[in-house]
């Protein structure tokens, strides 16, 4: 087990290097360091001198991947790629192109992102499971049928509409919560209520329907029939057996997204003005701040790999027969 985990962690390194290489390649195919400098120096009165100063200050004055003029190993190390990516492996992301420390920023922004993502994840899971169980309980009745219809309808609405409608009704017309913004602590509850509710509602359709099929598959199995034959009530069968066994695929499926909760939600955060990592990423894309984009890609992929690892581990925990090797 330990050896397996170790191997997987080592395996992550080439992936991260690959991701990084790809990010670099994609970004610099379109943007020269000169472009980046101009972008950040603004429109008015930009001189070539200012551009070369900017590049020197931000470390973009070396060649990209290969420096033919440098001696020996420096051919590789004295390049933008090496200098910028080698440090990321020790979580040193440097400063963004507009001069703020990225790691500091990520630390302060992870909180708001989690404040939205964690409740959405947990409550969403609960709501979806409840809804799915109800449908399974009333399976093959009109309630089940309409439940599924409701799910498909909910699924067919773009997430943007949920946000726009939620903001319009709850915040604008009914004055129940602030329209947007964020605050820490208990006061922050008022701000996250709406985004959390909207995100949960937007996720019910797909989630509940998927869980319903899992539970239905479970309910067709022999042990459930045995349990029922023993005279257990329907509720008991559902909760004791179906829910417990159905939770295995649900949880192992959910584990993979767990670390990615840190990344926040791009759309929700920017609509509701939540200063999280999602809106950070969007802003960085829009202002083409390469340093931030690179850091977020790196963290995103690292978290994704951790998610895969957690999934593997959760399989062994859920089912002792699975051995990792």
């Amino acid at each position, binding site marked *: 087990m330990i050896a397996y985990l170790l191997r997987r962690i080592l395996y992550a390194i080439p992936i991260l290097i690959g991701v990084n290489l790809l990010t670099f390649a994609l970004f610099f195919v379109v943007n020269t360091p000169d472009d980046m400098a101009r972008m950040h120096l603004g429109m008015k009165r930009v001189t070539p001198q200012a551009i070369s100063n900017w590049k020197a200050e931000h470390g973009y004055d070396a060649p990209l991947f290969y420096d033919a003029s440098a001696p020996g190993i420096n051919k590789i190390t004295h390049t933008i790629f090496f200098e910028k990516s080698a440090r990321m492996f020790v979580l040193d992301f440097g400063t963004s192109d507009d001069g703020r420390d990225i790691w500091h920023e990520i630390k302060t922004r992870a909180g708001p992102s989690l404040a939205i993502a964690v409740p959405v994840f947990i409550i969403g899971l609960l709501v979806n499971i409840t809804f799915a169980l109800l449908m399974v309980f009333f399976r093959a009745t009109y309630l089940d049928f309409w439940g599924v219809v409701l799910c498909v309808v909910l*699924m067919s609405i773009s997430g943007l509409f949920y946000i726009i409608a939620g903001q319009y009704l709850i915040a604008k017309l009914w004055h129940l919560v602030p329209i947007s913004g964020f605050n820490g602590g208990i006061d922050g509850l008022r701000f996250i209520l709406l985004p959390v509710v909207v995100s949960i509602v937007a996720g019910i359709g797909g989630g509940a329907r998927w869980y319903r099929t899992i539970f239905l598959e479970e309910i067709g199995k022999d042990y459930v029939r045995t349990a029922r034959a023993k005279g257990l009530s329907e509720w008991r069968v559902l909760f004791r057996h179906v829910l417990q066994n159905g939770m295995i695929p649900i949880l192992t499926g959910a584990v993979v997204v767990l670390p990615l909760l840190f990344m926040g939600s791009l759309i929700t955060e920017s609509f509701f003005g939540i200063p999280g990592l999602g809106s950070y990423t969007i802003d960085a894309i829009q202002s083409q701040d390469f340093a931030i984009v690179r850091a977020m890609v790196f963290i995103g992929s690292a978290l994704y790999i951790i998610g895969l690892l957690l999934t593997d581990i959760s399989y062994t925990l859920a089912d002792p027969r699975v051995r990792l090797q």
Partner: protein
Amino acid sequence: MMFKLVMLKTDALIFLLLAAVGIFTWYVRRHDYLRAPWRRVLTNPTGMAAAVVLAVFVVIGLLDSLHYRPALAMKAGQPVQYGVEVLSALDAMLPKLRTHKEKTYSAPLATHLYAKETIVLANGSTVRDYPRLKYGGAQLADPHTQWMRDIVQRIAWGVIEGLTLTALLVLLLAALLARRQPGGLVAALVRLLRGGNAIPWRTLLITCAILLMLGLVIVQLAAAYHVFGTDKVGQDVLYISLKSIRTGLVIGTLTTLVMLPFALLLGIVAGYFRGWVDDLIQYLYTTLNSIPGVLLIAASVLIMQVYIEAHPDVFDTSAARSDIRLLFLCLILGVTSWTGLCRLLRGETLKLREQEYIQAATAFGVSHWRIITRHILPNLQHLVLITVVMDFSGLVLAEAVLTYVGVGVDPAMYSWGNMINSARLEMAREPVVWWQLSAAFVFMFALVLAANLFADSVRDAFDPRGRVQ
């Protein structure tokens, strides 16, 4: 020649896809084991109703994919010249919707603009009032008294036409069925109306009737009004919504078309050969998958813009420019979404290659290629099919979100994402301009709902236990 045909890159791919679907259908019809699940799809009422709705969208999308450049009026002795505006067969069918532009916003079915303006009266004095629209309700002499009557009349006509057409359709269908079934026309009619056929003809007819009525009511109204109002620059919103259909369909289908070969090839190869090939392919898709999709898409869209700027002579029309951007978006969405299918196929292939008959085939020295095409590929068919139909709706929804973020389709392209995007400002107006958002909602919802329902019936037919999500 009155026009010059233009084959945009996505048009070519759409017709390629159409041909592929045709060949596939022909192939399925010839193989009984393949036909069986499709029969199940055919007998599913919800699925078939959804298919009818989808078909309407597809027809509109296809009409909108036949592009041409109209010839300009010419003087004698000059060579024929064509305009740079690329039109489609759909535009040719809807000349009024396209060209009847108002000044700015007007509400659905309105006869007046949505904002007050200073109007100079005949006697030279000025008043501040809502000016009449140039086209919307222009036939009415006094809109305040005639408007309601006119609208009701047009709706009634639309419904009557719809019902008449449906009745004709029912008779036609009954006549066709009567030739195959015993009992003559009347018996066929009765069976049809009672829903006594294996194929749910009755549901299909009801769907058709509703669609026909809706369509004809809209046709009636659109002849004199802007059914969904007009947008900021006075463009008919119904027209924008209809033009957006093609964009949605292209994203939903071409993306899959693009990703399919990769996913199939790599998934099967990885599962079949295992070893270092498997490692390499796994590395490839884990790497791609671990990059947050939005970032990958943003970067690619930028690359594409550089490419366009480097070749301005190739992309000489606005249509060509936005088309290549759309295609690129499909490509990159394909790249980000093929990994899921690839993993699924790899797992299934791993299982299949352990099957006895394949082991036996290997022992007999059958070539790898043959084993893959003969034994493995057909057994993966249902997985591919289900993924393709299930992905469709997700992709249509993704377009809206990406466009909202600013890395989606070209801003000049008609798309639901762009409609929602401009609605951001409209929702902040007082009073609210709601119709563009609503139109985008209605159209998107109809397409995605139909796609979801159809995908469900396909999945039920091919994979009754719902293992694939």
